[in-house]
Protein backbone atom coordinates (compact mmCIF):
# COMPACT_ATOMS: atom_id res chain seq x y z
CA UNK A 1 0.00 0.00 0.00
CA UNK A 2 1.19 3.46 -0.79
CA UNK A 3 2.31 5.66 2.10
CA UNK A 4 0.47 8.68 0.78
CA UNK A 5 -2.50 8.56 -1.50
CA UNK A 6 -4.22 11.72 -2.64
CA UNK A 7 -7.59 11.25 -4.32
CA UNK A 8 -9.51 13.91 -6.25
CA UNK A 9 -7.94 16.68 -4.21
CA UNK A 10 -9.56 20.06 -4.70
CA UNK A 11 -8.48 23.29 -3.10
CA UNK A 12 -10.69 26.21 -4.12
CA UNK A 13 -10.32 29.75 -2.91
CA UNK A 14 -13.61 31.63 -2.95
CA UNK A 15 -13.94 34.92 -4.81
CA UNK A 16 -16.21 37.31 -2.95
CA UNK A 17 -17.46 40.51 -4.52
CA UNK A 18 -20.04 43.22 -4.10
CA UNK A 19 -21.67 44.85 -1.15
CA UNK A 20 -22.61 41.66 0.69
CA UNK A 21 -19.41 39.83 -0.07
CA UNK A 22 -21.38 37.40 -2.15
CA UNK A 23 -19.60 34.23 -3.19
CA UNK A 24 -19.38 34.69 -6.93
CA UNK A 25 -16.88 32.09 -7.99
CA UNK A 26 -13.79 30.12 -7.11
CA UNK A 27 -10.13 30.17 -7.93
CA UNK A 28 -9.46 26.52 -8.58
CA UNK A 29 -5.91 26.35 -7.27
CA UNK A 30 -5.90 22.57 -7.17
CA UNK A 31 -8.47 20.78 -9.26
CA UNK A 32 -8.82 17.00 -9.10
CA UNK A 33 -5.29 15.97 -8.29
CA UNK A 34 -4.52 12.29 -7.75
CA UNK A 35 -1.16 11.01 -6.67
CA UNK A 36 0.29 8.17 -4.68
CA UNK A 37 3.75 7.79 -3.22
CA UNK A 38 5.33 4.54 -2.05
CA UNK A 39 7.46 4.42 1.06
CA UNK A 40 11.08 5.44 0.41
CA UNK A 41 10.37 7.02 -2.96
CA UNK A 42 10.76 10.58 -4.16
CA UNK A 43 7.83 12.07 -5.99
CA UNK A 44 8.42 15.26 -7.97
CA UNK A 45 5.74 17.86 -8.48
CA UNK A 46 6.61 20.23 -11.31
CA UNK A 47 4.92 23.27 -12.72
CA UNK A 48 5.30 26.97 -13.32
CA UNK A 49 4.49 29.47 -10.62
CA UNK A 50 0.76 29.55 -10.12
CA UNK A 51 0.25 25.97 -11.25
CA UNK A 52 -0.88 24.83 -7.80
CA UNK A 53 2.07 22.65 -6.86
CA UNK A 54 2.80 24.45 -3.61
CA UNK A 55 -0.89 24.56 -2.70
CA UNK A 56 -1.04 20.79 -3.19
CA UNK A 57 1.87 20.30 -0.81
CA UNK A 58 0.43 22.68 1.75
CA UNK A 59 -2.99 21.02 1.56
CA UNK A 60 -1.44 17.62 2.28
CA UNK A 61 0.31 18.87 5.39
CA UNK A 62 -2.76 20.84 6.47
CA UNK A 63 -1.66 24.40 5.84
CA UNK A 64 -4.38 24.99 3.26
CA UNK A 65 -7.97 23.96 3.72
CA UNK A 66 -9.09 21.14 1.49
CA UNK A 67 -12.32 21.80 -0.42
CA UNK A 68 -12.93 18.15 -1.23
CA UNK A 69 -11.07 14.92 -1.80
CA UNK A 70 -9.09 12.51 0.32
CA UNK A 71 -5.56 12.58 1.62
CA UNK A 72 -4.89 9.02 2.79
CA UNK A 73 -1.74 8.77 4.85
CA UNK A 74 -0.99 5.27 6.09
CA UNK A 75 -4.67 4.45 5.68
CA UNK A 76 -5.98 7.45 7.62
CA UNK A 77 -7.88 10.23 5.84
CA UNK A 78 -6.33 13.55 6.82
CA UNK A 79 -8.90 15.57 4.89
CA UNK A 80 -11.60 14.61 7.39
CA UNK A 81 -11.86 16.40 10.70
CA UNK A 82 -10.75 19.82 11.84
CA UNK A 83 -7.44 21.56 12.00
CA UNK A 84 -6.32 19.89 15.20
CA UNK A 85 -7.46 16.39 14.40
CA UNK A 86 -4.98 13.64 13.58
CA UNK A 87 -2.21 15.49 15.42
CA UNK A 88 -0.42 12.24 16.17
CA UNK A 89 -0.42 11.40 12.45
CA UNK A 90 0.63 14.85 11.37
CA UNK A 91 3.90 14.53 13.25
CA UNK A 92 4.89 11.97 10.64
CA UNK A 93 4.65 14.60 7.90
CA UNK A 94 7.13 17.47 7.97
CA UNK A 95 8.04 20.26 5.64
CA UNK A 96 11.22 21.87 4.32
CA UNK A 97 10.61 25.39 3.14
CA UNK A 98 11.96 27.27 0.17
CA UNK A 99 13.67 30.20 1.71
CA UNK A 100 16.12 29.37 4.51
CA UNK A 101 16.35 33.06 5.35
CA UNK A 102 12.72 33.52 6.29
CA UNK A 103 11.74 30.06 7.52
CA UNK A 104 13.92 30.22 10.64
CA UNK A 105 12.94 32.57 13.46
CA UNK A 106 15.79 35.11 13.75
CA UNK A 107 15.18 35.60 17.46
CA UNK A 108 15.59 31.95 18.38
CA UNK A 109 18.74 29.97 18.97
CA UNK A 110 19.33 26.91 16.84
CA UNK A 111 18.59 24.80 19.93
CA UNK A 112 15.09 26.25 20.26
CA UNK A 113 14.44 26.06 16.54
CA UNK A 114 15.27 22.39 16.30
CA UNK A 115 13.66 21.53 19.63
CA UNK A 116 10.33 23.15 18.79
CA UNK A 117 8.74 20.07 17.21
CA UNK A 118 10.13 17.94 20.05
CA UNK A 119 8.52 20.24 22.61
CA UNK A 120 5.23 20.05 20.76
CA UNK A 121 5.05 16.29 20.65
CA UNK A 122 7.41 14.77 23.18
CA UNK A 123 7.88 15.56 26.83
CA UNK A 124 11.61 15.51 27.28
CA UNK A 125 13.77 16.70 30.15
CA UNK A 126 16.16 19.53 29.23
CA UNK A 127 19.10 17.10 29.21
CA UNK A 128 17.33 14.65 26.94
CA UNK A 129 16.25 17.47 24.68
CA UNK A 130 19.79 18.79 24.38
CA UNK A 131 21.05 15.30 23.60
CA UNK A 132 18.48 14.89 20.84
CA UNK A 133 19.28 18.31 19.34
CA UNK A 134 23.00 17.50 19.34
CA UNK A 135 22.32 14.18 17.61
CA UNK A 136 20.29 15.98 14.96
CA UNK A 137 23.00 18.58 14.44
CA UNK A 138 25.54 15.82 14.00
CA UNK A 139 23.29 14.19 11.44
CA UNK A 140 23.16 17.38 9.37
CA UNK A 141 26.92 17.95 9.79
CA UNK A 142 26.80 21.05 11.92
CA UNK A 143 29.13 21.54 14.85
CA UNK A 144 27.80 21.08 18.42
CA UNK A 145 28.64 24.71 19.26
CA UNK A 146 25.96 25.77 16.77
CA UNK A 147 23.16 25.19 19.28
CA UNK A 148 23.77 28.51 20.96
CA UNK A 149 24.03 30.45 17.71
CA UNK A 150 21.34 32.38 15.89
CA UNK A 151 20.27 31.84 12.26
CA UNK A 152 22.06 34.94 10.96
CA UNK A 153 25.39 33.39 11.89
CA UNK A 154 25.01 30.69 9.24
CA UNK A 155 25.34 30.55 5.47
CA UNK A 156 22.41 29.66 3.22
CA UNK A 157 23.34 25.99 2.92
CA UNK A 158 23.86 25.67 6.66
CA UNK A 159 20.52 27.30 7.35
CA UNK A 160 18.78 24.93 5.00
CA UNK A 161 20.41 22.08 6.95
CA UNK A 162 19.04 23.54 10.18
CA UNK A 163 15.63 23.50 8.50
CA UNK A 164 16.20 19.87 7.58
CA UNK A 165 17.26 19.02 11.14
CA UNK A 166 14.01 20.53 12.38
CA UNK A 167 12.05 18.57 9.79
CA UNK A 168 13.60 15.22 10.76
CA UNK A 169 13.49 15.83 14.54
CA UNK A 170 10.34 13.74 15.03
CA UNK A 171 11.52 10.96 12.71
CA UNK A 172 8.80 11.63 10.16
CA UNK A 173 7.83 9.26 7.38
CA UNK A 174 7.04 11.86 4.75
CA UNK A 175 8.82 15.12 4.04
CA UNK A 176 7.32 17.74 1.79
CA UNK A 177 10.17 19.78 0.34
CA UNK A 178 8.88 22.93 -1.31
CA UNK A 179 11.60 24.28 -3.61
CA UNK A 180 14.26 23.39 -1.02
CA UNK A 181 17.23 24.56 -3.07
CA UNK A 182 15.98 27.26 -5.40
CA UNK A 183 17.25 30.04 -3.12
CA UNK A 184 20.76 28.57 -3.04
CA UNK A 185 23.88 28.81 -5.19
CA UNK A 186 24.69 25.82 -7.41
CA UNK A 187 27.52 24.57 -5.24
CA UNK A 188 25.42 24.81 -2.08
CA UNK A 189 22.49 23.33 -3.94
CA UNK A 190 24.58 20.24 -4.67
CA UNK A 191 25.45 19.95 -1.01
CA UNK A 192 21.81 20.08 0.13
CA UNK A 193 20.62 17.66 -2.56
CA UNK A 194 23.33 15.13 -1.73
CA UNK A 195 22.48 15.45 1.89
CA UNK A 196 18.74 14.97 1.31
CA UNK A 197 19.52 11.75 -0.51
CA UNK A 198 21.77 10.50 2.27
CA UNK A 199 19.21 10.99 5.01
CA UNK A 200 16.54 9.51 2.79
CA UNK A 201 18.47 6.24 2.70
CA UNK A 202 19.37 6.39 6.33
CA UNK A 203 15.90 7.12 7.69
CA UNK A 204 13.88 5.49 4.92
CA UNK A 205 12.19 8.82 4.18
CA UNK A 206 9.61 9.51 1.52
CA UNK A 207 9.82 12.85 -0.27
CA UNK A 208 7.29 14.96 -2.04
CA UNK A 209 9.68 17.21 -3.90
CA UNK A 210 8.18 20.40 -5.29
CA UNK A 211 10.26 22.32 -7.79
CA UNK A 212 10.17 24.22 -11.05
CA UNK A 213 13.69 23.13 -11.94
CA UNK A 214 13.46 20.08 -14.15
CA UNK A 215 17.18 19.35 -13.95
CA UNK A 216 16.93 18.89 -10.20
CA UNK A 217 13.69 16.95 -10.46
CA UNK A 218 15.31 14.56 -12.90
CA UNK A 219 18.24 14.12 -10.57
CA UNK A 220 16.16 13.48 -7.47
CA UNK A 221 12.85 11.87 -8.34
CA UNK A 222 11.48 8.42 -9.14
CA UNK A 223 8.06 9.60 -10.27
CA UNK A 224 6.98 12.96 -11.58
CA UNK A 225 3.68 14.78 -11.86
CA UNK A 226 3.39 17.84 -14.07
CA UNK A 227 0.83 20.46 -13.16
CA UNK A 228 -0.70 23.25 -15.18
CA UNK A 229 -3.35 25.65 -13.88
CA UNK A 230 -4.28 23.41 -10.97
CA UNK A 231 -4.59 20.21 -12.96
CA UNK A 232 -2.30 17.36 -13.86
CA UNK A 233 -1.21 17.24 -17.48
CA UNK A 234 1.07 14.24 -17.25
CA UNK A 235 2.28 11.75 -14.72
CA UNK A 236 4.80 8.95 -14.93
CA UNK A 237 8.21 7.64 -13.96
CA UNK A 238 11.21 9.89 -14.56
CA UNK A 239 12.04 7.86 -17.67
CA UNK A 240 8.47 8.18 -18.98
CA UNK A 241 8.47 11.93 -18.59
CA UNK A 242 11.94 12.70 -19.90
CA UNK A 243 12.29 10.05 -22.61
CA UNK A 244 8.74 9.87 -23.84
CA UNK A 245 6.81 13.06 -23.02
CA UNK A 246 3.33 12.86 -24.52
CA UNK A 247 1.61 16.09 -23.66
CA UNK A 248 2.66 19.20 -25.58
CA UNK A 249 2.97 21.15 -22.35
CA UNK A 250 5.48 18.64 -20.98
CA UNK A 251 7.36 18.70 -24.26
CA UNK A 252 7.57 22.45 -24.07
CA UNK A 253 8.82 22.43 -20.49
CA UNK A 254 11.50 19.88 -21.29
CA UNK A 255 12.57 21.77 -24.39
CA UNK A 256 13.03 24.90 -22.27
CA UNK A 257 15.67 23.38 -19.99
CA UNK A 258 18.97 25.16 -20.68
CA UNK A 259 21.54 22.87 -22.24
CA UNK A 260 25.07 22.88 -20.94
CA UNK A 261 26.59 22.00 -24.32
CA UNK A 262 27.13 25.17 -26.40
CA UNK A 263 27.92 23.20 -29.56
CA UNK A 264 24.30 22.07 -29.74
CA UNK A 265 22.95 25.64 -29.63
CA UNK A 266 21.67 25.86 -33.20
CA UNK A 267 20.13 22.43 -32.96
CA UNK A 268 18.34 23.39 -29.73
CA UNK A 269 16.99 26.60 -31.26
CA UNK A 270 15.51 24.67 -34.17
CA UNK A 271 14.11 22.02 -31.88
CA UNK A 272 12.50 24.65 -29.66
CA UNK A 273 10.99 26.40 -32.63
CA UNK A 274 9.43 23.16 -33.80
CA UNK A 275 8.08 22.43 -30.31
CA UNK A 276 6.70 25.97 -30.13
CA UNK A 277 4.96 25.63 -33.46
CA UNK A 278 3.55 22.28 -32.40
CA UNK A 279 2.37 23.81 -29.14
CA UNK A 280 0.57 26.62 -30.89
CA UNK A 281 -1.02 24.37 -33.47
CA UNK A 282 -2.07 21.62 -31.08
CA UNK A 283 -3.12 23.88 -28.20
CA UNK A 284 -6.82 23.46 -28.95
CA UNK A 285 -6.48 19.68 -29.07
CA UNK A 286 -4.82 19.43 -25.70
CA UNK A 287 -6.75 21.99 -23.66
CA UNK A 288 -10.47 22.68 -23.35
CA UNK A 289 -12.24 26.00 -23.98
CA UNK A 290 -11.09 27.40 -20.65
CA UNK A 291 -7.49 26.48 -21.37
CA UNK A 292 -7.52 23.68 -18.80
CA UNK A 293 -6.15 20.19 -19.19
CA UNK A 294 -8.41 17.15 -19.72
CA UNK A 295 -8.60 14.29 -17.20
CA UNK A 296 -5.66 11.89 -17.20
CA UNK A 297 -5.76 8.74 -19.33
CA UNK A 298 -3.21 6.03 -18.88
CA UNK A 299 -1.00 5.25 -21.86
CA UNK A 300 1.06 2.57 -20.13
CA UNK A 301 1.19 0.89 -16.73
CA UNK A 302 3.15 3.75 -15.21
CA UNK A 303 2.41 6.67 -17.48
CA UNK A 304 -0.75 8.76 -17.84
CA UNK A 305 -1.43 11.84 -19.91
CA UNK A 306 -4.22 14.40 -20.05
CA UNK A 307 -5.53 13.65 -23.51
CA UNK A 308 -8.85 14.85 -24.88
CA UNK A 309 -11.75 12.42 -24.87
CA UNK A 310 -11.10 10.78 -28.19
CA UNK A 311 -10.20 7.18 -29.02
Amino acid sequence: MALLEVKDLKVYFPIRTGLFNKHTGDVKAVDNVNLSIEQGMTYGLVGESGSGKTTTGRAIIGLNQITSGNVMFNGIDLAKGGRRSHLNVRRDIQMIFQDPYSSLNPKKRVWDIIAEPLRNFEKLSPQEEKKRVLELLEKVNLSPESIFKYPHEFSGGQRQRIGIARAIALKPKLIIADEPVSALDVSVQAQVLNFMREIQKELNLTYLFISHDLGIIKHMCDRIGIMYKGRYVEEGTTQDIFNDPQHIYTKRLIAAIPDIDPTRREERLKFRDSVKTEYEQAYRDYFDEEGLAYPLKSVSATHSVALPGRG
Partner: protein
Amino acid sequence: MSEELLKIENLTTSFRIVDDYYAAVDNVSLTVKKNEILAIVGESGSGKSALAFSVMGLHTRAKMEGHIYYKGQDIVNLPPSKLNKLRGKEMGMIFQDPLSALNPLMIIGDQIEEILILHNSKLSPKERKTKAIDLLQKVGIPRPEHTYTQYPHQLSGGMRQRVIIAIAIANEPSLLIADEPTTALDVTIQLQILDLLRKLKNDINAGIVLITHDLGVVAEMADRVAVMYAGQIVEIADIYSLISNAQHPYTRSLLNSIPAGNEKQDKLHVIQGIVPSLKNLPRKGCRFKARIPWIDESAHEENPQMHEVAPGHFVRCTCYKGFHFPDHN
Protein backbone atom coordinates in the same frame (compact mmCIF):
# COMPACT_ATOMS: atom_id res chain seq x y z
CA MET B 1 32.51 44.05 -36.03
CA SER B 2 35.06 43.36 -33.35
CA GLU B 3 35.05 46.91 -32.10
CA GLU B 4 35.76 47.34 -28.41
CA LEU B 5 32.78 48.82 -26.68
CA LEU B 6 33.78 48.50 -23.07
CA LYS B 7 37.26 48.07 -21.77
CA ILE B 8 37.88 47.59 -18.09
CA GLU B 9 41.47 47.95 -16.94
CA ASN B 10 42.69 46.95 -13.47
CA LEU B 11 39.45 47.97 -11.86
CA THR B 12 39.35 47.77 -8.09
CA THR B 13 36.17 48.70 -6.25
CA SER B 14 36.50 48.82 -2.47
CA PHE B 15 33.95 49.32 0.25
CA ARG B 16 34.63 50.79 3.60
CA ILE B 17 33.98 48.54 6.60
CA VAL B 18 34.65 50.31 9.89
CA ASP B 19 38.03 51.95 9.19
CA ASP B 20 39.36 50.03 6.29
CA TYR B 21 38.61 49.59 2.63
CA TYR B 22 38.04 46.08 1.32
CA ALA B 23 38.11 45.31 -2.39
CA ALA B 24 34.97 43.56 -3.64
CA VAL B 25 36.21 43.83 -7.21
CA ASP B 26 39.94 43.27 -7.26
CA ASN B 27 42.05 44.24 -10.24
CA VAL B 28 39.62 43.12 -12.91
CA SER B 29 40.37 43.63 -16.59
CA LEU B 30 38.10 42.64 -19.44
CA THR B 31 36.63 43.84 -22.70
CA VAL B 32 33.23 43.65 -24.33
CA LYS B 33 32.90 44.01 -28.06
CA LYS B 34 29.96 45.11 -30.14
CA ASN B 35 27.44 42.40 -30.84
CA GLU B 36 28.93 40.14 -28.21
CA ILE B 37 27.54 38.54 -25.10
CA LEU B 38 30.03 38.29 -22.28
CA ALA B 39 28.79 36.23 -19.35
CA ILE B 40 30.09 36.73 -15.84
CA VAL B 41 29.61 33.69 -13.63
CA GLY B 42 30.22 33.04 -9.96
CA GLU B 43 28.58 32.23 -6.66
CA SER B 44 26.90 34.94 -4.66
CA GLY B 45 29.55 37.05 -3.01
CA SER B 46 32.02 36.64 -5.86
CA GLY B 47 31.74 40.29 -6.86
CA LYS B 48 29.91 39.98 -10.17
CA SER B 49 27.12 42.39 -9.31
CA ALA B 50 29.59 44.77 -7.67
CA LEU B 51 31.43 44.81 -11.00
CA ALA B 52 28.24 45.59 -12.92
CA PHE B 53 27.30 48.35 -10.51
CA SER B 54 30.80 49.80 -10.88
CA VAL B 55 30.42 50.04 -14.64
CA MET B 56 27.11 51.81 -14.25
CA GLY B 57 28.51 54.06 -11.52
CA LEU B 58 25.84 52.99 -9.08
CA HIS B 59 28.06 52.62 -6.03
CA THR B 60 27.71 55.84 -4.13
CA ARG B 61 30.28 55.28 -1.42
CA ALA B 62 32.77 52.94 -2.97
CA LYS B 63 36.36 53.74 -3.74
CA MET B 64 37.05 52.97 -7.37
CA GLU B 65 40.50 52.69 -8.88
CA GLY B 66 41.53 51.74 -12.38
CA HIS B 67 39.86 52.51 -15.67
CA ILE B 68 36.59 51.76 -17.37
CA TYR B 69 36.68 52.93 -20.97
CA TYR B 70 33.32 53.21 -22.65
CA LYS B 71 33.93 53.86 -26.34
CA GLY B 72 37.33 55.21 -25.38
CA GLN B 73 36.13 57.56 -22.65
CA ASP B 74 37.21 56.82 -19.09
CA ILE B 75 34.06 56.80 -16.97
CA VAL B 76 35.55 55.96 -13.58
CA ASN B 77 34.75 58.68 -11.05
CA LEU B 78 32.93 60.73 -13.64
CA PRO B 79 30.56 63.19 -11.91
CA PRO B 80 26.92 62.05 -11.87
CA SER B 81 25.86 64.86 -14.17
CA LYS B 82 28.11 63.50 -16.91
CA LEU B 83 27.35 59.86 -16.14
CA ASN B 84 23.65 60.55 -16.43
CA LYS B 85 24.16 61.46 -20.07
CA LEU B 86 25.42 57.93 -20.66
CA ARG B 87 23.27 55.90 -18.32
CA GLY B 88 19.92 55.02 -19.79
CA LYS B 89 21.01 56.27 -23.18
CA GLU B 90 24.28 54.61 -24.08
CA MET B 91 24.26 52.00 -21.34
CA GLY B 92 21.15 50.20 -20.18
CA MET B 93 20.82 48.01 -17.15
CA ILE B 94 18.42 45.15 -16.52
CA PHE B 95 18.01 44.52 -12.82
CA GLN B 96 17.52 41.22 -11.12
CA ASP B 97 14.33 41.80 -9.20
CA PRO B 98 11.70 43.36 -11.45
CA LEU B 99 9.36 44.15 -8.58
CA SER B 100 11.76 46.30 -6.63
CA ALA B 101 13.21 47.94 -9.75
CA LEU B 102 9.85 49.38 -10.80
CA ASN B 103 8.08 52.21 -9.05
CA PRO B 104 4.89 50.76 -7.54
CA LEU B 105 3.08 54.10 -7.68
CA MET B 106 3.59 54.85 -11.37
CA ILE B 107 1.84 53.26 -14.32
CA ILE B 108 4.08 51.32 -16.68
CA GLY B 109 3.69 53.88 -19.47
CA ASP B 110 4.99 56.75 -17.35
CA GLN B 111 7.96 54.71 -16.20
CA ILE B 112 9.01 54.09 -19.78
CA GLU B 113 8.34 57.68 -20.83
CA GLU B 114 10.43 58.92 -17.94
CA ILE B 115 13.59 57.69 -19.59
CA LEU B 116 12.50 59.06 -22.96
CA ILE B 117 11.95 62.50 -21.42
CA LEU B 118 15.39 62.43 -19.80
CA HIS B 119 17.31 61.62 -22.94
CA ASN B 120 15.08 62.43 -25.83
CA SER B 121 13.32 65.65 -24.92
CA LYS B 122 12.39 66.54 -28.47
CA LEU B 123 9.56 64.03 -28.62
CA SER B 124 6.04 65.36 -28.14
CA PRO B 125 3.87 63.66 -25.50
CA LYS B 126 1.99 61.88 -28.24
CA GLU B 127 5.14 60.58 -29.89
CA ARG B 128 6.41 59.43 -26.53
CA LYS B 129 3.31 57.41 -25.91
CA THR B 130 3.55 55.78 -29.32
CA LYS B 131 7.18 54.99 -28.68
CA ALA B 132 6.43 53.51 -25.25
CA ILE B 133 3.75 51.28 -26.70
CA ASP B 134 6.11 50.25 -29.50
CA LEU B 135 8.68 49.28 -26.92
CA LEU B 136 6.19 47.19 -24.99
CA GLN B 137 5.29 45.46 -28.20
CA LYS B 138 8.93 44.87 -29.03
CA VAL B 139 9.54 43.01 -25.78
CA GLY B 140 6.60 40.76 -26.52
CA ILE B 141 3.84 42.10 -24.29
CA PRO B 142 0.57 40.90 -25.82
CA ARG B 143 -1.67 43.95 -25.18
CA PRO B 144 0.70 46.92 -25.03
CA GLU B 145 -1.99 49.64 -24.93
CA HIS B 146 -3.57 47.96 -21.94
CA THR B 147 -0.29 47.31 -20.13
CA TYR B 148 0.67 50.94 -20.67
CA THR B 149 -1.99 51.99 -18.16
CA GLN B 150 -1.31 49.25 -15.60
CA TYR B 151 0.66 49.34 -12.37
CA PRO B 152 3.55 46.93 -11.70
CA HIS B 153 1.56 44.86 -9.19
CA GLN B 154 -0.96 44.00 -11.88
CA LEU B 155 1.66 42.22 -13.96
CA SER B 156 3.24 38.79 -13.56
CA GLY B 157 6.96 38.35 -12.93
CA GLY B 158 7.75 37.63 -16.58
CA MET B 159 5.79 40.67 -17.76
CA ARG B 160 7.52 42.92 -15.22
CA GLN B 161 10.90 41.68 -16.38
CA ARG B 162 9.89 42.57 -19.93
CA VAL B 163 8.96 46.07 -18.81
CA ILE B 164 12.41 46.39 -17.20
CA ILE B 165 13.95 45.32 -20.48
CA ALA B 166 11.76 47.78 -22.39
CA ILE B 167 13.06 50.58 -20.15
CA ALA B 168 16.64 49.42 -20.55
CA ILE B 169 16.45 49.41 -24.35
CA ALA B 170 14.24 52.49 -24.72
CA ASN B 171 17.08 54.63 -26.09
CA GLU B 172 18.73 51.79 -28.00
CA PRO B 173 21.85 51.54 -25.84
CA SER B 174 25.06 50.13 -27.25
CA LEU B 175 25.81 48.34 -24.02
CA LEU B 176 23.34 46.33 -21.97
CA ILE B 177 24.15 45.03 -18.54
CA ALA B 178 21.82 42.26 -17.44
CA ASP B 179 22.18 41.34 -13.78
CA GLU B 180 20.57 37.90 -13.29
CA PRO B 181 17.73 38.78 -15.68
CA THR B 182 16.00 35.41 -15.46
CA THR B 183 16.75 34.15 -11.97
CA ALA B 184 13.30 34.91 -10.64
CA LEU B 185 11.48 33.36 -13.59
CA ASP B 186 10.05 30.02 -14.72
CA VAL B 187 11.90 28.04 -17.38
CA THR B 188 9.49 28.76 -20.21
CA ILE B 189 9.48 32.48 -19.43
CA GLN B 190 13.25 32.38 -18.99
CA LEU B 191 13.52 31.01 -22.50
CA GLN B 192 11.40 33.81 -23.91
CA ILE B 193 13.45 36.48 -22.13
CA LEU B 194 16.71 34.94 -23.35
CA ASP B 195 15.37 34.79 -26.89
CA LEU B 196 14.45 38.44 -26.55
CA LEU B 197 17.96 39.39 -25.42
CA ARG B 198 19.48 37.44 -28.28
CA LYS B 199 17.18 39.22 -30.72
CA LEU B 200 18.06 42.61 -29.27
CA LYS B 201 21.72 41.86 -29.65
CA ASN B 202 21.19 41.24 -33.35
CA ASP B 203 18.74 44.12 -33.87
CA ILE B 204 20.63 46.95 -32.22
CA ASN B 205 24.06 45.39 -32.42
CA ALA B 206 24.54 45.85 -28.69
CA GLY B 207 27.19 44.38 -26.48
CA ILE B 208 25.65 42.52 -23.56
CA VAL B 209 27.16 41.72 -20.19
CA LEU B 210 25.15 38.85 -18.79
CA ILE B 211 25.60 38.22 -15.10
CA THR B 212 24.30 34.91 -13.85
CA HIS B 213 25.04 31.93 -11.67
CA ASP B 214 23.23 29.54 -13.98
CA LEU B 215 25.74 27.74 -16.18
CA GLY B 216 22.94 26.41 -18.36
CA VAL B 217 21.95 29.96 -19.28
CA VAL B 218 25.59 30.80 -19.95
CA ALA B 219 25.99 27.84 -22.28
CA GLU B 220 22.88 28.90 -24.18
CA MET B 221 23.73 32.55 -24.54
CA ALA B 222 27.32 33.62 -24.13
CA ASP B 223 30.06 34.19 -26.67
CA ARG B 224 32.69 34.54 -23.98
CA VAL B 225 32.66 33.80 -20.27
CA ALA B 226 34.49 35.27 -17.31
CA VAL B 227 34.39 33.24 -14.10
CA MET B 228 34.71 35.30 -10.95
CA TYR B 229 35.71 34.14 -7.52
CA ALA B 230 36.23 36.36 -4.47
CA GLY B 231 36.46 39.53 -6.52
CA GLN B 232 38.88 38.27 -9.13
CA ILE B 233 38.49 36.78 -12.55
CA VAL B 234 39.88 33.26 -12.27
CA GLU B 235 39.22 32.12 -15.82
CA ILE B 236 38.17 33.78 -19.02
CA ALA B 237 37.60 32.06 -22.35
CA ASP B 238 35.21 31.65 -25.23
CA ILE B 239 32.19 29.57 -24.34
CA TYR B 240 33.23 26.45 -26.24
CA SER B 241 36.64 26.21 -24.57
CA LEU B 242 35.19 27.02 -21.18
CA ILE B 243 32.62 24.25 -21.21
CA SER B 244 34.68 21.58 -22.94
CA ASN B 245 38.10 22.47 -21.62
CA ALA B 246 37.68 24.26 -18.29
CA GLN B 247 40.97 24.63 -16.47
CA HIS B 248 40.60 26.44 -13.18
CA PRO B 249 39.57 24.24 -10.23
CA TYR B 250 36.72 26.62 -9.43
CA THR B 251 35.25 26.47 -12.93
CA ARG B 252 35.57 22.70 -12.96
CA SER B 253 33.94 22.42 -9.55
CA LEU B 254 31.03 24.59 -10.62
CA LEU B 255 30.51 22.55 -13.77
CA ASN B 256 30.60 19.37 -11.74
CA SER B 257 28.09 20.52 -9.18
CA ILE B 258 25.13 20.93 -11.52
CA PRO B 259 22.79 18.00 -12.04
CA ALA B 260 23.48 17.59 -15.75
CA GLY B 261 20.90 14.90 -16.07
CA ASN B 262 22.71 13.19 -18.93
CA GLU B 263 23.73 10.25 -16.86
CA LYS B 264 22.47 9.35 -13.44
CA GLN B 265 25.14 10.68 -11.13
CA ASP B 266 24.59 9.43 -7.67
CA LYS B 267 26.36 12.30 -6.04
CA LEU B 268 26.93 15.84 -7.14
CA HIS B 269 30.26 17.46 -6.51
CA VAL B 270 30.24 19.76 -3.52
CA ILE B 271 32.69 22.64 -3.24
CA GLN B 272 34.00 22.52 0.29
CA GLY B 273 33.62 25.56 2.51
CA ILE B 274 32.01 28.84 1.59
CA VAL B 275 32.87 31.99 -0.35
CA PRO B 276 34.85 34.04 2.19
CA SER B 277 33.21 37.28 3.22
CA LEU B 278 34.69 40.57 2.07
CA LYS B 279 36.52 41.13 5.34
CA ASN B 280 38.02 37.66 5.48
CA LEU B 281 39.27 37.44 1.92
CA PRO B 282 42.79 36.10 1.73
CA ARG B 283 44.69 38.96 0.13
CA LYS B 284 47.76 36.89 -0.59
CA GLY B 285 48.11 33.74 -2.60
CA CYS B 286 45.44 31.76 -4.40
CA ARG B 287 42.02 32.71 -3.08
CA PHE B 288 40.54 29.34 -3.93
CA LYS B 289 43.18 27.46 -1.94
CA ALA B 290 41.06 27.00 1.18
CA ARG B 291 38.37 25.20 -0.79
CA ILE B 292 40.63 22.61 -2.37
CA PRO B 293 42.67 21.57 0.67
CA TRP B 294 43.66 18.21 -0.83
CA ILE B 295 45.80 19.99 -3.41
CA ASP B 296 49.41 20.41 -2.36
CA GLU B 297 50.48 23.87 -1.23
CA SER B 298 53.27 23.95 -3.80
CA ALA B 299 50.80 23.79 -6.68
CA HIS B 300 49.70 27.35 -5.97
CA GLU B 301 51.49 30.46 -7.03
CA GLU B 302 52.60 32.87 -4.38
CA ASN B 303 51.23 35.75 -6.34
CA PRO B 304 48.65 34.24 -8.71
CA GLN B 305 48.80 35.64 -12.26
CA MET B 306 46.70 35.01 -15.32
CA HIS B 307 48.24 32.40 -17.61
CA GLU B 308 47.29 32.04 -21.24
CA VAL B 309 46.65 28.34 -21.80
CA ALA B 310 45.28 28.76 -25.32
CA PRO B 311 44.68 31.85 -27.47
CA GLY B 312 42.16 33.98 -25.58
CA HIS B 313 41.86 31.47 -22.74
CA PHE B 314 43.33 32.74 -19.45
CA VAL B 315 43.53 30.99 -16.08
CA ARG B 316 44.61 32.41 -12.76
CA CYS B 317 47.19 30.64 -10.56
CA THR B 318 49.17 27.53 -11.40
CA CYS B 319 46.98 25.21 -9.33
CA TYR B 320 45.02 24.22 -12.44
CA LYS B 321 47.95 22.09 -13.55
CA GLY B 322 47.37 18.56 -12.41
CA PHE B 323 44.22 19.49 -10.52
CA HIS B 324 42.06 16.51 -9.63
CA PHE B 325 38.91 16.01 -7.64
CA PRO B 326 39.15 14.05 -4.40
CA ASP B 327 38.28 10.37 -4.80
CA HIS B 328 35.09 10.74 -2.89
CA ASN B 329 33.56 13.67 -1.17
